[in-house]
């Protein structure tokens, strides 16, 4: 997870040029997410993951670039491809891994699994099984923040598939008229399940879908964490200043299939290759090396991440199945 705390970065000021410690922190977190997803993938292959699981490998820059602009107390609502958000926002890896395995030591004691991981301690209103389902939750969190003057802001993450849910338009409209401190972040990976975005999505401009509500809307290279971060910092500071919502589209790519068992035969090989070349982690590594960070530092982060994930996997595998009594508890508060 990220260790620096969002826009403050020790200076109390939003800043689109993150200092070196934050950049390294973002790198570390992206690497952690990638390793985590590989850990999940191998658990899935071993038959240990109940149900289906949607991996976010390839989308780490969008996950981390945005969340690095937040404070720990800020809210996010995530979606079905949400491990990266949960990790970046700060939930301990073992709790996530155990949850994905449906075990008693999971953050929700195995009730929800990958699609339902909540952690209010770090402002996470949950991954979500309903396409678009988290959007109003984040918008509502922004309403709370505004009403109770807590200074928090909220981010709604969603995929390109959710662009066609009317719910998004409704929430954008209300966020705009009520000037809510919310940032709508579309992680556009070009597909919704097995369907390419352009076959189901009208209009030449996706940013127009926010502009129509007079919401400042930007499209950024979602494989470039620095670009994502700069845009997110601007949007967050706008929200924090009480100026209302923003819309960010991060163009990115799903390195895995829709879910871990998807063979992706519908994808064009050229396209896959092209995007593999844009790997956000390799790209940031290159940048860091240019900035004089040594390869051994990068390697160290890599092996730390691998170790953290291995520990989380171990923790998850060792965790017991939930007790039957859990079934009927916590239906009501």
């Amino acid at each position: 997870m990220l260790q620096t705390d969002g826009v403050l970065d020790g200076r109390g000021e939003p800043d689109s040029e993150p200092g070196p410690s934050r950049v390294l922190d973002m790198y570390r977190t992206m690497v952690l997410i990638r390793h985590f997803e590989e850990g999940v993938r191998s658990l899935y292959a071993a038959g240990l993951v109940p149900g289906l699981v949607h991996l976010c490998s390839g989308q780490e820059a969008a996950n981390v670039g945005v969340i690095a602009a937040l404070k720990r107390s800020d809210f996010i609502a995530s979606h079905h491809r949400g491990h990266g958000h949960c990790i970046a926002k700060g939930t301990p890896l073992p709790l996530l891994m155990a949850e994905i395995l449906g075990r008693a030591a999971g953050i929700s004691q195995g009730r929800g699994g990958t699609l339902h991981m909540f952690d209010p301690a770090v402002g996470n209103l949950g991954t979500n099984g309903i396409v678009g389902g988290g959007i109003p939750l984040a918008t509502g969190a922004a309403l709370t923040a505004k009403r109770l003057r807590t200074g928090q802001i909220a981010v709604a993450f969603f995929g390109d598939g959710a662009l066609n849910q009317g719910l998004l338009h409704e929430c954008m409209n209300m966020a705009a008229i009520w000037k809510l401190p919310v940032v709508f972040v579309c992680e556009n990976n070009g597909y919704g399940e097995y369907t390419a975005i352009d076959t189901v999505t009208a209009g030449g401009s996706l940013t127009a879908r926010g502009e129509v509500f007079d919401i400042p809307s930007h499209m950024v290279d979602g494989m470039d964490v620095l670009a994502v971060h700069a845009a997110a910092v601007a949007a967050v500071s706008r929200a924090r200043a009480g100026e209302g919502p923003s819309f960010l589209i991060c163009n990115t790519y799903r390195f895995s299939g829709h879910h871990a068992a998807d063979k992706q035969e519908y994808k064009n090989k050229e396209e896959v290759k092209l995007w593999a070349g844009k790997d956000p982690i390799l790209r940031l590594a290159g940048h860091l090396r240019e900035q004089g960070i040594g390869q051994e530092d990068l390697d160290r982060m890599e092996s730390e991440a691998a170790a953290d994930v291995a520990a989380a996997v171990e923790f998850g595998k060792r965790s017991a199945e939930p007790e039957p009594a859990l079934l009927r508890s916590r239906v009501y508060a």
Partner: protein
Amino acid sequence: MPEEREITYRAAIIEALREEMRADPRVIVLGEDVGAAGGVFKQTEGLFAEFGTERVIDTPISESGAFGIAVGAAMTGLRPVFEVMFCDFLTLVMDQLVNQAAKVHYMSNGLLSVPLVLRTTMGTGANLGPQHSQSLYAWTAHVPGLKVVVPSTAYDAKGLYRSALRDDNPVLIFEDRLLYNTKSPIPEEPFAVPFGRCDVKRAGSDITIVAVGRMVHAALAAATRLAEHGLDTEVVDPRSLVPLDVEGLVRSVRKTNRVLVVDGGHRQYGAAAEIAATLSEEAFDWLDAPVTRLAAEDVPIPLSRSLEPLVQPNEMRIAEQAQILMGR
């Protein structure tokens, strides 16, 4: 006995909201025309003047999104009261209600909760036609995680609202529009009516009528009519459908050995079925006749003045059915 003031069902609800809004700044009201207009049935009148735009919020006609926002607000520290103008429009908030609000507490292993009141209106009687006359509480009562309340009197409405506003779960309150102008004596002091406790609205020994919402009044009228025929009718109002006071209902049946369930929702796969099935099972050995249901006709609800009154049970049909049941 000191004279008690009488106020309307509508005023009782507004009073409960006002008291709670004064006591707790986290309580906000959202809906279409709930603000300056005071609600299309005047059911939020005066709140906007006292609490302003910050706490009494007119939403666009965007039920799905607006209700979803209320759910998000409830998860993060507010206690929203969200109004769906007609329960026919619950159709538009089902996803946020069922897949998010009802399940968040469970899915999050109790880390989060959704303290939210969804109030809505229902029923026939104003010739509003098929899309504005339904009574759809059975749907929501089928969903674990939701509580469902159907107040039949001003007194119950006030007390149930207080319970709802202090509950940490999503609570649905179904208000029959024809009840808004009905009055009951109501203490000046705030009070709560707990969920899961049925209320014997009329004690009797020959037959139990379990009635929901406005049907309670039709049942009481039928009971008066039946008394003329020497029949001593008990009328029991569950008040909340979830939780349901099974024990309280069974108690009545053990006494009377006959039950008629009267429900303003459709009969097929409706709320009366749950009550009837439960009593048939739980009170099997005390039943002298089959538990019988009288519910709304299984048809879309027509507008016409001659047809609409045929849809929901009324005094006459209840009395008739009770007599048939006594004859078995």
